């Protein structure tokens, strides 16, 4: 088995808000092995992005890490001083944001921005060498007419092209781990597909070694991921190989998510959304946080929080109602 690259243990993050303390992450455990693509799926507000930001140490000031650790190789990231974190960000771990248009500096040319990122983490020779490397990166992300794009400003590019630039910047220093935070959800479906194909292509070419892919879509999960973790209200509820999760998922939440995907092969498939919404995290339900919406709830769910248990090979789940 390959080595653990990222290991999140029992991570709890609270946000101070005007209404009280929001318990956004509540004991998240997650492991990513080298060379693996891990999908993180869940509804909006389930804490996926917060998990990614915690890894990079970019939480807003109102957030506090209450317990837990985030090990990247041998380093526990939250305890590292800022200057050491800066060396990791962008060079060893980098992030592709959801909104490509807003994640680029609007007043700087694309080429300059890529060269800036290159300069931060590696020695590049003179100006021409930097431009050459930036061009290579743009070519690596299949950017049409890279030499022209180098001299354009972000607003002159389309959403898909902006996302390609953002990916080029993220892979500029060959990171060991790339976190993609819903990179396809702000562009339309056809462009999203091309971005996804690009990610798969980069993975095959081994430009990207390990990937944490945050998404809402099981379709994307099935295309690119090796493993899947499902998140609900700040907890990982099920974790396993992609085939296991897609075909043999057992957690009532994940089952519900699967049901709410339309089956295009059936003639009249019915859309069955899950009832209810994510609970308010200031006063989350006791016991299992999913119990108010859960169709399989038993009495124990109201009282005790279920822990992740190994139920089959490489398949973990947190539910009291599960019977073997």
């Amino acid at each position: 088995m390959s080595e653990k690259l990222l290991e999140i243990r029992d991570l709890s993050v609270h946000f101070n808000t005007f209404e009280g303390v929001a318990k956004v992450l509540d004991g998240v455990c997650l492991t990513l092995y080298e060379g693996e693509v891990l999908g993180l799926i869940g509804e909006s507000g389930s804490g996926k992005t917060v998990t990614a930001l915690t890894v990079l140490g970019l939480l807003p000031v109102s957030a506090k890490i209450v317990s837990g650790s985030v090990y990247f190789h041998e380093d526990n990231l939250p305890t590292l001083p800022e200057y050491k974190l800066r060396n990791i960000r962008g060079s060893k771990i980098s992030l592709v944001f959801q909104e490509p248009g807003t994640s680029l500096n609007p007043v700087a040319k694309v080429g300059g921005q890529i060269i800036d990122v290159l300069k931060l983490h590696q020695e590049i020779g003179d100006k021409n060498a930097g431009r050459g490397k930036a061009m290579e990166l743009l070519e690596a992300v299949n950017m049409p007419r890279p030499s022209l794009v180098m001299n354009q400003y972000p607003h002159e590019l389309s959403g898909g092209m902006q996302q390609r630039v953002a990916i080029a910047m993220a892979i500029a220093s060959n990171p060991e781990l790339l976190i993609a935070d819903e990179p396809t959800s702000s562009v339309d479906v056809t462009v999203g597909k091309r971005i996804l194909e690009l990610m798969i292509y980069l993975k095959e070419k081994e430009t990207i070694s390990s990937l944490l892919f945050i998404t809402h879509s099981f379709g994307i999960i099935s295309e690119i991921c090796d493993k899947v973790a499902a998140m609900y209200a700040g907890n990982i509820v099920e974790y396993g190989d992609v085939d296991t999760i897609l075909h043999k998922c057992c957690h009532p939440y994940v089952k519900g998510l699967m049901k709410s995907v339309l089956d295009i092969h059936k003639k009249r498939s019915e859309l069955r959304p899950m009832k209810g919404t994510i609970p308010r995290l200031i006063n989350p339900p006791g016991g299992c946080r999913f119990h108010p919406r859960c169709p399989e709830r038993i009495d124990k769910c109201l009282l005790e929080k279920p822990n992740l248990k190994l139920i089959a090979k490489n398949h973990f789940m947190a539910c009291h109602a599960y019977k073997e």
Partner: protein
Amino acid sequence: MARFSVGYLILLFVIIIFAPYIAPEDPLALDLEHTVEPPSMEHPFGTDGMGRCILSRIIYGARLTSLAGFVAILVGMTAGIPLGLIAGYYRGKIDTVIMMGMETLMGFPYLLLVIVLITMLGPSLQNAMVAIGIWIMPYYTRLARASALSIKEQEFIEAARMSGESNFSIIFRYLFPNSISPIIVWSTIYYARAILMAAGLGFLGLGAQPPTPEWGAMTAIGREYIFLAPHVLFFPSVTILLTALSFNIWGDLLRDILDPRLRGME
């Protein structure tokens, strides 16, 4: 109005550059036989109490007065903008301390503040420029802080932090260029106020010292002749008025051009 003001400013600019070639006489040359003469063909704006050509003095004064405004704005900018960006970016205690200091400065009546500063530094045009700069600084700090507050929440700042940029480089390479457009507009308007202020200080004898041809100081001298020869007072004051007005109108124009929401409207 806009055309007039831009035309006036271009004229002023040409005058500033080519002052020695345009001015008919030496602005400091005394001619005691022809004192307080009304406008004539020889002296279009008349002569002052020492017989000096008022037109030539206004032309040379354009250099000094514009320079005074420019230096004051520059002092205010270089001190105020970084402080504001730092306050807005870091928030917390740094923000509180910086903004408290700035608000204390703003709490003083502006003339009192500038007079106190000049009393400390000694009356001269250079010190007047610095004092005006210090008076303007807190406004730049506020403006820069407000811009920083909204810009730092945008995702490209987070993306910059993500890629490992240092705080220093985020402030000066990301926040600063993105906050520059309101600052430019605001500078043109405060440039006019700085000129007025420099002239006012000259008038009070705290700025340029006689016989330096500076508009405010000239107005102060003209006051003595207000009944005898009003033109001595009239021409420098009107020049100050027109210059300040033109810069204000130009500032408005610039805002309309730079603000994308107002673009394309008549």
